[in-house]
């Protein structure tokens, strides 16, 4: 990887991609060369389950400002869910 900025976190959830809906096992967040778009570098998000096949992933490429806006909105949604009592800590993906 050219920038060497890449982090992978294990997680549970589901995504819809080439195989249809599938259970994801990890997400990778990188800042590197995008496949599409007009940027030299971009934030690269991959939700994947490579135990299925390399194509079992959902990919998103974002510019930096968009990624920061996403982080803000993700945090805001989590905060609201927790404040509203909709997301008890014990509830995990099944």
């Amino acid at each position, binding site marked *: 990887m*050219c920038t*060497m900025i890449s982090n992978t976190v294990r997680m549970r959830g589901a995504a819809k991609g080439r195989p249809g809906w599938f259970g994801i096992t990890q997400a990778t967040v*990188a800042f590197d*060369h995008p496949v599409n778009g*007009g940027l030299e570098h971009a934030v690269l998000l*991959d939700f994947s389950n*490579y135990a299925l096949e*390399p194509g079992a*992933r959902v*990919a998103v490429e974002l510019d930096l400002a968009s990624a920061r806006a996403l982080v803000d909105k993700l945090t805001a949604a989590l905060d609201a869910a927790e404040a509203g009592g909709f997301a008890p800590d014990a509830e995990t993906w099944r």
Partner: protein
Amino acid sequence: MWNSFRTDAQVSIETEIIRYPGGGGDQIHAYIARPRGAGRHPGVVLVHHMPGWDEFYQEFAERLARHGYLVICPDLYCRFGHGTSDDVTAKVRSQGGVHDDSVVADCGAALAWLKAQPDCSGKVAIMGTCSGGRHALLAASRVPGFAAVVDLWGGGVVASPDQLSPARPVAPIDYTKDLQVPLLGLFGNDDRSPSPDQVDLHEAELRKYGKDYEFHRYDGAGHGFFYYHTPNYRPAQTMDAWGKIFAFFQKHLSD
């Protein structure tokens, strides 16, 4: 030089995907592009970039073959599985990248494959872009037998300790004293990896050890300025750089 063939010349190439014994004897894929017709040709090990073993690299290999070079471009991600190049690349990235030792071994095996071909002259260069430029330099420094190396904007040749990783444990600049073949380096002055300062550091190290090298730096160009499928493409700088590559090969790969 590009576009300098005679209109009555029989310029023709053959391409195929093969499996060859890569590092550790593992059977891995490689894209082969070779000039058609009699004669023996200099070889090129073409090292693909971070975005993977993709269509750009197939076309890159074909251009070199049309100019008389027998090219092998190994799939350095072959052991990670198969799919579209962007999917496989994402999987490789999620695992921290392909290990330098794996790449060096596959490139050394590609050199051996070329030298065993009856239509290869025995003089073989190695070249690549982006991470492939870094890997080409690394392989040329660690594997004996190459005749020349071309590094096209290889990022990470100069790396701080925090930029090293399990897959990339040593910065290629630290192998400079071991480099025994001529080096051509082509860079964009707007690039951030490698930055002009990093290219300066690399050049200073090459001078320190008295190495045979030539660097060319282009204004108005950044990273990946050959990539005609991206907005990074800079046609004038690219064509000038191709001229530099062919002249370099003419000088160092001719019998």
